[in-house]
């Protein structure tokens, strides 16, 4: 068939009515002409017409052949079925609304979840050829990674020919001043190859050239599209502007095109220029990414890097040589195993919701099928084949499912709107969650699958049941098989719901456990923020110390403020690896985490002292340097150096300098021991931490912790004002209550699993609808029986309790299966739970009780209807 013909036939589908009437006209004209000719040959008008009809042939088959050859008959059949489906939907609006509603919930939840999964796990990253982007790390021991030292990075860059580009980066924050309220912008200091690794188109301007990360280069920055829009008002002349970052003018050389980076916190990039000291100092502070050459494989890159590392560390310490190099695909680094697991569990949960929705729809269709048996029997008697009937019923379910999918997409859009703000912190910035074509295609597929899954059984049941019987009997009672199937379906629904509800309750208990977890600090009424002192204005450590002192003084004067503390890292936040402590006469170094705090820190967070003293206001430059250590480090010292009482002992601690990339290893006295405060997510043991006084070891980046008498957010304006009075150019960033910080650390990556709660609620609702449908159908079917029993003296209470018993027995059977399911899923849940057993009796019991309650509620309406049956009426009605 030529293409032209196919198009012609498709067009004919649309012009069906017109073509039919044209053919009608042609046939009439044909007969008229033939009759005319017959008459002219001397026939009578009647005889001529008869002759004309005879030679024309049968008209109906002619019309059909005409239709056959001008268009696609099967499409017409489908269209007719679809029209019929729509019409039958309109005939039973209540039924259709319930089915579409059920499907909208089921499909909507799935579509929403899929778009989240798709964005985080499946869609390629929004960079050119993203599979070639890798992270390169040093792994001191298996499972741990370490930042890279500049000398190593420079050597890698020189030797690693498997990479097209290799770039190092470091997160920075800068104050943007000179245009209204000072703003704190996150950025990255990157080597010039950065945008060759993360290729991103520019809106205008350019990205870095290779000389721009060399010493002496003029200060330039590249802006993200979001930064250009938000922080610079979309100024079209941005390339002529020289905004002040940390007080220093920077030339804007380019603005990136809108894209993935706009969801990241990074607003600007500036060249990372190593100072001569940094080039040689053995400090780990760089994050390295690379782009594989097109002809290089990951394995080759790993081998090559290992070889380079071996060659570079030949002359180094034993410790250095033990390390290996890890080359990991970037996408693997973005999505940690916790998030992945959490997403998969949530997706599994939402698939269960879909199954329940399918079961519900199948149930409703069965009920409707039972009511339509007479109609179908008539059609079968008139010659419709069984397969034709099945197709028609399936097409009808497909129409319903498509409507459900359309409504579901709306539900998904709503769910995403509600969930994205809650989840945005847990998912990587590269994930663009949106209802795009892929998601719509998924919705279409789901609708098809549901139509098949939920429609096949009812269609078969309805079309293959003994139709003849339905003609004989006024379909009064539903057949036994029919009712049994429907009850089985409800049992399945209850079982699936129980699994979900139990899962949701387990997660909730786990969350409560986390809420109650003793983190060693008091978070109540504490608000935190970060302040970065620009190196341009705070050139010397003394200037920073002055700032700390006046900040504490001013903040104390703010009404409502009771405590003020300062630290380089917030409590509960991860502290970087890489510092070391040396006990005199002990060769082995103790790996420690290093944190600078001010005298108010321990007090503000109510961290108890176990021995010695805390940091006092007397520990300033010029007095003997001291540190406070945590319990974990005390234990470690007892272990490594056999120090029973570390207070008063002198040790050496490596301390990063005032500017990045410098370090020293001064001698300090241990002044006290605190009870360990939690440093990272639960499950890992407390690391050894050294707390050094900020005044003795100053740094430009600090976090402020302010405890207030009541709601700390209310004090923010006054706090900002206090800081502004010290330095009007200092922006304040990352404002968060300690409670928020705590939530982020404790439950961050498992947050998507919280969606299970929403899904469980939907599942329960659907199951209640299903149960209600079955019980109420059964009551309608048994009205006569109930009427007779009541006529014979059964009391309303009796009828009520019997109907309820029936409903609850279905629930009970479902619960038994559901518990088996919950047991089967133990292993999956275990990884998501904190100090809660996957078979936690409290959660499982609560879930069972909840389902029983749902059973009661769903059964009560039809049961009370049954109890109100008037025996006289029902018996007269159908007698």
């Amino acid at each position, binding site marked *: 068939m030529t293409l032209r*013909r196919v198009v*012609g036939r498709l067009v004919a589908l649309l012009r069906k009515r017109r073509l039919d009437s044209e053919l009608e006209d042609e046939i009439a*004209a044909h007969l008229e002409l033939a009759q005319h000719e017959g008459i002219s040959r001397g026939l009578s008008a009647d005889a001529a017409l008869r002759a004309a009809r005879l030679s024309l*042939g049968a008209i109906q088959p002619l019309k059909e052949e005409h239709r056959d050859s*001008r268009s696609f008959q099967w499409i017409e059949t489908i269209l007719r079925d679809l029209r019929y489906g729509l019409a039958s939907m309109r005939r039973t609006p209540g039924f259709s609304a319930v089915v579409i509603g059920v499907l909208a919930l089921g499909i909507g939840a799935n579509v929403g979840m899929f778009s989240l999964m798709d964005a985080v796990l499946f869609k390629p990253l929004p960079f050119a050829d993203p599979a070639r982007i890798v992270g390169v790390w040093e792994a001191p021991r298996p499972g741990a990674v370490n930042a890279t030292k500049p000398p190593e990075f420079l050597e890698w860059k020189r030797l690693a020919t498997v990479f097209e580009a290799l770039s190092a980066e470091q997160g920075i924050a800068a104050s943007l001043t000179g245009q209204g309220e000072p703003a704190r912008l996150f950025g990255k200091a990157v080597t010039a190859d950065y945008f060759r690794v993360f290729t991103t188109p520019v809106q205008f301007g350019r990205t870095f050239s290779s000389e721009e990360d060399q010493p002496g280069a003029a200060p330039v920055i590249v802006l993200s599209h979001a930064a250009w829009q938000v922080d610079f008002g979309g100024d079209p002349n941005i390339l002529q502007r020289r905004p002040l970052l940390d007080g220093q003018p920077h030339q804007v050389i380019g603005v990136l095109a809108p894209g993935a980076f706009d969801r990241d916190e990074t607003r600007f990039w500036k060249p990372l220029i190593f100072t001569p000291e940094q080039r040689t100092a053995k400090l780990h502070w760089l994050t390295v990414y690379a782009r594989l050459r097109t002809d290089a494989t990951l394995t080759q890159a790993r081998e090559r890097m290992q070889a380079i590392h071996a060659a570079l560390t030949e002359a180094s310490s034993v410790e250095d040589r033990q390390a290996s190099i890890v080359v990991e695909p970037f996408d693997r680094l973005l999505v940690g195993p916790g998030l992945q697991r959490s997403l998969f569990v949530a997706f599994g949960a939402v698939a269960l919701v879909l199954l329940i929705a399918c079961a519900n729809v199948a149930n409703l269709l069965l009920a409707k099928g039972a009511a339509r048996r007479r109609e179908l029997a008539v059609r079968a008697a008139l010659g419709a084949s069984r397969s034709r009937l099945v197709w028609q019923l399936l097409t009808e379910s497909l129409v319903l499912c498509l409507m459900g999918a359309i409504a579901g997409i709306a539900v998904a859009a709503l769910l995403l709107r509600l969930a994205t703000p809650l989840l945005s912190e847990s998912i990587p910035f590269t994930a663009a969650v949106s209802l795009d074509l892929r998601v719509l295609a998924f919705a279409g597929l789901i609708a098809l699958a549901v139509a098949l899954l939920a429609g096949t059984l009812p269609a078969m049941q309805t079309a293959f049941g003994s139709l003849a019987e339905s003609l004989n009997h006024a379909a009064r009672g539903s057949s036994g098989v029919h009712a049994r199937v429907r009850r089985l379906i409800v049992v399945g629904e209850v079982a699936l719901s129980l699994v979900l509800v139990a899962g949701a309750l387990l997660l909730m208990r786990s969350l409560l456990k986390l809420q109650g977890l003793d983190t060693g600090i008091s978070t109540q009424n504490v608000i935190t923020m970060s302040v970065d002192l620009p190196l341009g204005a705070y050139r010397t450590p003394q200037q920073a110390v002055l700032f700390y002192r006046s900040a504490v003084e001013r903040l104390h004067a703010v009404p409502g403020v009771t405590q003020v503390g300062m630290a380089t890292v917030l409590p509960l936040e991860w502290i970087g690896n890489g510092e070391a402590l040396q006990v005199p006469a002990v060769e082995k170094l103790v790996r420690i985490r290093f944190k600078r705090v001010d005298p108010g820190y321990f007090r503000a967070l109510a961290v108890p002292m176990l021995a010695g003293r805390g940091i006092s206001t007397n520990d300033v430059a010029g007095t003997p340097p001291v540190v406070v250590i945590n319990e974990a480090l005390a234990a470690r010292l007892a272990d490594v150096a056999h120090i029973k009482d570390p207070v008063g002992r002198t040790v050496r601690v490596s301390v990063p300098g005032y500017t990045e990339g410098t370090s020293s290893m001064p001698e300090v006295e241990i002044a006290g021991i605190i009870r360990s405060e939690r440093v990272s997510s639960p499950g890992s043991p407390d690391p050894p931490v050294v707390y050094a006084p900020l005044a003795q070891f100053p740094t430009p980046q600090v976090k402020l912790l302010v405890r207030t008498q009541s709601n700390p957010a209310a004090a923010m304006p006054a706090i900002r004002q206090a800081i502004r009075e010290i330095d009007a150019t200092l922006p304040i960033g990352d404002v968060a209550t300690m409670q928020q910080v705590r939530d982020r650390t404790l439950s961050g990556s498992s947050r998507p699993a919280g969606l299970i709660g929403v899904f469980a609620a939907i599942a329960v609702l659907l199951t209640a609808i299903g149960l209600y449908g079955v019980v109420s159908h059964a009551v309608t079917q048994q009205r006569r029986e109930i009427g007779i029993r009541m006529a014979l003296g059964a009391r309303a209470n009796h009828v009520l309790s019997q109907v309820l018993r029936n409903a609850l027995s279905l629930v009970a059977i479902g619960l038994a299966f559901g518990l088996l399911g919950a047991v089967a899923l133990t292993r999956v849940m275990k990884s998501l739970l904190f100090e809660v057993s996957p078979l936690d009796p409290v959660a499982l019991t609560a879930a069972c009780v909840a389902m029983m309650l749902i059973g009661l509620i769903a059964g009560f309406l039809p049961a009370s209807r049954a109890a109100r049956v008037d025996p006289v009426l029902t018996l007269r009605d159908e007698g």
Partner: protein
Amino acid sequence: MTHVPNCPIIKLSKDDMSKQQTEVPYGTLDLLVLKSLDTMGTLHGYAISRRIEQVCGDDMQLSQGSVYPALIRLQQEGWIRDDWGISETNRKVKFYSLTAAGRKQLRVEVAKWEKATALVARFLEAKS
């Protein structure tokens, strides 16, 4: 039962129809319609069916109605076009005529047909 090859028998049952279509070369009726229009110029449906009847004589059983499915097919291929006109009985009817593409198609069909018949004829005449 043997068929007269160039005049398809149009049976009434739809199921039989589809079997017929596979047995009788489908384009045969099309060829007759195209040739009629080529010879006679512009014709309406009735005239086309009469023309085929007259030329084929009594050797064939063709219901006149079967030209209409053929006509819509040819029209969709772009080989013929229709214009409204007035019939001898003063009625608005469609008059069909060949398009340039149709004339070309007719030449192709005729050549194909002649080649096929010549081949068969040669085969039948061939002596051992």
